[in-house]
């Protein structure tokens, strides 16, 4: 793979033999201006499992993901990523406004130099998966926020990621769209079986989608809560309103409140 010309990212240590897909040990990040974004975070994501990270805004949630991708270099600690196929979904859909839906979905395969037929084949498949077949020729500005996020998910899926990093992907959407996309993302997870870190400030979203919820404290962020989620997949949409769900949500919210102090 080509060496990055910008000299920006430092690829994290990749230990292919490890059983974890992603592992943080004592990872700390202090920015140049002196702010400590995260202070000693330990985190393990095993293949095929989703872990969510919730925390107050500005607690370094995104920094964790940026460190995992290599966009940001940690000040201390060890990061290991066991795969080259990392998908990243940004807070904003980050579509290129001059490209159609089809061309946007083909962007990553294009950057990786895949042949045209293969790009087309993969794009067709994922566009069908997110239900946007009728919109291939549309430009992003003519789509709703939810549709744009679907395009963004489809784009990431073209590289068949083994590890998916989600940076508050649904935070700018309305509640109904957010829930629907949560349902759809669960389906994608169940069919593709990727491992992932889901960063969010919505406790409901975290519980609904993932098998473990980590609570991050106020900056400098450290993990102050670790809640396994026992519900079996596939989880029906209505599970969000069950008593067990509500109990777990209130425990996590309580932990969040304590972490903010």
């Amino acid at each position, binding site marked *: 793979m*080509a*060496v990055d010309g910008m000299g*920006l990212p430092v690829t994290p240590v990749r230990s292919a033999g490890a059983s974890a897909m992603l592992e943080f040990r004592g990872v700390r990040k202090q920015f140049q201006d002196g702010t400590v974004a995260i202070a000693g975070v330990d985190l393990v994501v095993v293949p095929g499992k989703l872990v969510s990270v919730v925390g107050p805004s500005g607690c370094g949630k995104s920094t964790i993901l940026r460190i995992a991708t290599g966009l940001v270099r940690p000040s201390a600690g060890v990061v290991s990523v066991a795969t080259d196929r990392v998908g*990243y979904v940004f807070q904003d859909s*980050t579509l*290129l*406004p001059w490209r159609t839906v089809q061309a946007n979905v083909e962007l990553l395969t*294009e950057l990786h130099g895949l042949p045209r037929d293969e790009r087309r084949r993969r794009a067709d498949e994922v566009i069908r998966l997110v239900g946007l077949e009728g919109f291939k020729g549309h430009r*992003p500005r003519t789509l709703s926020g939810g549709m744009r996020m679907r395009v963004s998910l489809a784009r990431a899926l073209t590289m068949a990621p083994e590890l998916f990093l989600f940076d508050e992907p649904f935070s700018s959407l309305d509640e109904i769209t957010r829930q629907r996309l949560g349902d759809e993302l669960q389906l994608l997870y169940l069919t593709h079986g990727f491992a992932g870190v889901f960063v969010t400030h919505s406790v409901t979203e975290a519980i609904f989608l993932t098998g473990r919820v980590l609570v991050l404290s106020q900056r400098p962020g450290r993990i102050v809560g670790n809640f396994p989620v026992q519900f079996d997949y596939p989880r029906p949409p209505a599970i969000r309103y069950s008593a067990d769900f509500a109990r777990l949500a209130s425990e996590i919210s309580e932990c969040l409140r304590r972490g903010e102090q």
Partner: protein
Amino acid sequence: MSPIRSRLGTFGPPLAVFLLVIVGWYGVSYLILDPDRRFLLPPPHAVVLIGFLDPTNLTELLDALLLSAAVAGTGLAIAAAIGIATAIVMSQAGWVERSIYPYFVVLQTIPVLALVPLFGFWLGFGVECRVLVCVLIALFPIVANTLFGLRSVDEAHHDLFTLHRASRLTRLVKLQLPTALPSIFTGLRISAGLAVIGAIVGDFFFKQGDPGIGILIDLYRQRLQSEQLFAAVILSSLLGVLVFTACGWLSRRVVGGWHSSAMDREAMR
């Protein structure tokens, strides 16, 4: 609203102003000016009859206009090529920008037209020299706007390209240049107007060689041929309007499908 009424709403008011100006013009020509001073503002129909409908005069005017348009167009094209290329190089290497950007600012602040006699002194007063004036006058807005456009790429888009190990060239071609297109067109539009001004006002200093429309304007003024003078002024203005409109049309054709400000302008029309 019905289509006819909405069209009336769009074209009605400016048309009314136009008629008002024509009426005012006649008023000044016939009511305020004595017949022996009427040459200062000849009535509109005289301008049309003598300036535009007399074949000899019209040919002379159109030939000159064509020359000036060619000078402005060539100058603009060269300025665009040099300006965009320079901005790309500056965006790729900070030291290049630090070395030459100050001189572009200086170029912008010195009155290029004041240098025209000097250029004529060096290069003669042919078409090449007139083109050079247009290039110099049109260069800075293109450089500045292109550079701004290349710089205004969203941070998250850069991250996306970094994550997928895009090369510098790929990043430039697939991300920075498309992002910069609307700004490049803004620069072109400003420079197009400047190039026309450069071609016409530059003529005042040459007064030699094939006449551009500026030379004719000066000539008609000296000979007190005010009908032709007005016709020449009107044609020069039309050239400016035409160039400006053409740039806007091109901009909408290229980026109108996705760029919001181009779309908004479209919506307001």
